[in-house]
């Protein structure tokens, strides 16, 4: 698979790094704000995913109320239950997936 990917990339030579919201049921306003927040944090702490996740969580707790959970990583699986209208599943930087949801 990795080889294929490499081959494809080699063919196309396009690496997308823009934030791609894969799934989110947030309201438009909130979604934009959250995307902005994630992007800025991921760019700032691109070397340390743990710190990145912590910073995102802290900011989210401050802005949208507590009990946020954030996962930042390159490969993982998840199955979560969340308070409706409070989830975002987002790809960023071409290799990074960020899931954040609210659940008390």
């Amino acid at each position: 698979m990795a080889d294929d990917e490499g081959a494809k990339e080699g063919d196309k030579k396009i690496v997308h790094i823009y934030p791609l919201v894969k799934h989110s049921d947030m309201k438009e306003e909130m979604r934009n704000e959250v995307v902005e927040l994630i992007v800025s944090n991921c760019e700032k702490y691109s070397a340390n995913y743990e710190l990145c996740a912590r910073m995102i969580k802290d900011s989210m707790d401050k802005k949208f109320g507590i009990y946020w959970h954030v996962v930042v990583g390159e490969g993982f699986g998840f199955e979560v239950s969340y308070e409706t209208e409070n989830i975002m599943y987002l790809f960023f930087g071409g290799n990074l997936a960020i899931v954040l949801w609210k659940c008390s």
Partner: protein
Amino acid sequence: MQTPKVKEGKPKKVRTSKGKEGGGGGGDADDFDAWMKSRQLIKPDDQLELTEAELGEEVTKVLTPTNTNVLRNLVVFSFKDGEYVLAPTPSNTVTLISFAGNSLHVDSEEARYQVEESDEIGYPLPMPNYAVVEQRETLQEGEEEGEGDDDEKIGVDAKPVPEGGDEEEVEEEEDEEGKQEGEHATEGEGGAEEEERAGAQPAIPTSGKKKKLINQFNYCERATLTYVNPKRNVDTQTIPPPRSQFGGNVLQWIIYDSYNEDYEEQQKMGQLAGKRVSAKKTFKKKTAHAEQLNRKYLRCWQILERMINQNIFDDIGNDYRYWEDPADEYREGEGNLLPLWKFQYEKTKKMNVTELVFNPSYYDLFAVCYGSHDFLKQHNEGYLCLFTVKNPAYPDYIIQTDCGVMCCDIHQNYPFLVVIGLYDGNVAVYDLRDGCKEPMYVSRGVKCKHGECVWQVKWGPDMADGEINFYSVSSDGCVFSWILMQNKLWVTTIITLYIENGIADGPDGTKVTLRSGGSCVQFHPTNPTVFLVGTEIGLIYKCSTLFSSKYLMTYDAHNMSVYRIDYNRFDSNIFVSCSGDWRVKVWEDMRADPLFIFDLGSAVGDVKWAPYSSTVFAAVTTEGKVHVFDLNVNKYKPICVQAVVPKRKNKLTRLAFNEKLPFIIVGDEKGATTSLKLSPNLRLMVKPPKKQLYLDQLTLQTAKLEKLLSLVRELPDGDQAPDVATTVNT
């Protein structure tokens, strides 16, 4: 100290004997035996067993006053003498315990004093003991006598010795301690006697004021219990926020695929959007281009239409210009009207013509207002159409409004400015050059409009600073002046048409000043500050724009609503009015009575002076007839009465003279405007006398009118003007 010990045994014995003697009863003896037994029992085990002899043996013990424990050879070093000197022997007293109490002896002076003060003590105080001795003596005698043989042995053995001893002792003690306290002496005599005394002796009657000490334990406590508020618990449970499930797997290829998918979609969307934008732009360009083209085409089509119409209506056109009825030469004082075109607009066929106004600059262009005079049949739209004689088929300009257009006026100096008054009380100004879709000015707001239907609007002469203005009159009894400011209409009230002495009782005791609704207005041709207002109650007020409080003149003109007032074109002192009361009246300024009264047999919708003659005016009636008068020809009858529309189906509403050519237009209730050519007899010019050929028409017309008026004015002042109207018979 040890002597009393020895003696102690004896007194005990004496007492026991005494007890036996005194008791007399068996009970006491038993108690004594029991006591004796118990005494024997507590004898220690290691006690020496002694024989009677040994016990009886007397052991002499010598008591010396010398204390052997006291040190007698104590020395102290004296620094003064430089040697040891004998210290003084310490005293014999050994203090075992020192107790500082606050108790007072009952018999002490202090105690007695205290008792006298307070009168509070647990038991009665004993008497002083002086009498006790005597009592006791008697008792003892009695005892000796009464007891007799029972205890003689013991009594004989024991009594005399201790008694004597006791007596002696008492006496000795009394001697020793002095007589300060008599009671002390009694101590030695035993508790029994004391008890007796206590029982027998009455308490000393305390003298002096009794003082009650406060007992701190004797008090009363009061309390009350209030209701305890009941406690309650109220719980409520809210619905928890809704939750959802979501799951997924993050793998690098999933991320990659998602990005690719999204990117492709974005590309597609971008292409589509680009197409749309370009499409829109092209569309806009096209429409703008089309509009320009359309305008050009429109002009062409209009010219073409006019050409076609000219061909179609060639005969009418010729009549309009050149036809003179040859029959008039043979008729004296009679004329007729030749119908020319009929102007109609498709959308206004069911509406009334509410106003006809010729354009002052373009003589063949005229405005027709469409609305409704019927209160119950108001349309939701109104029209103002400008027709030209050159094209009777279709109006040149069409202005559509939300409600009926009741009146309009075209500005004298700016022939493109049209002001209209609407049925809902609003006024609007249109600039015909800009198109007819949006008004240039429109009255807005509740305050800045008339409360009811606007009946007439009139452009006023430009103000000193060049601002364009107009006046409007409405059923709400107000005459407003409107000024066209830079971007809005500025409204001021010129006059409110209050009825003189017209005060009615309003609700809850208030007074309401009645107003008369204005129905028409006409400005003085030469003096722009003076104007006439016709009202719905038939009065005509002469007012001035300079002040709003007073009428210059009130004409009691009609019995019904005044529909039109028109000033004579040649003499501004003369005006004509018409009304719903079938009458047309000719007035002279400041004369309360009319000069001429004509009864036309039905409501007169409009009356206008002819622009070419000082004595000719025309009127239209609801019967559908046009009446043309020439006062110079006939003072009593119209010189022409002609039905223009069918009598029962239609009514004529308005009329207007063309300023240049000898024709009139009349509007009817079916939205049609008919143009009628005046025959030569209806437009007779004054022939100048042979001697005064140089005189122009204006002078001649004025002279003609003056001559006519002088005839009417000659009526004596006292006589009532001919109220009997000239009834027009046809």
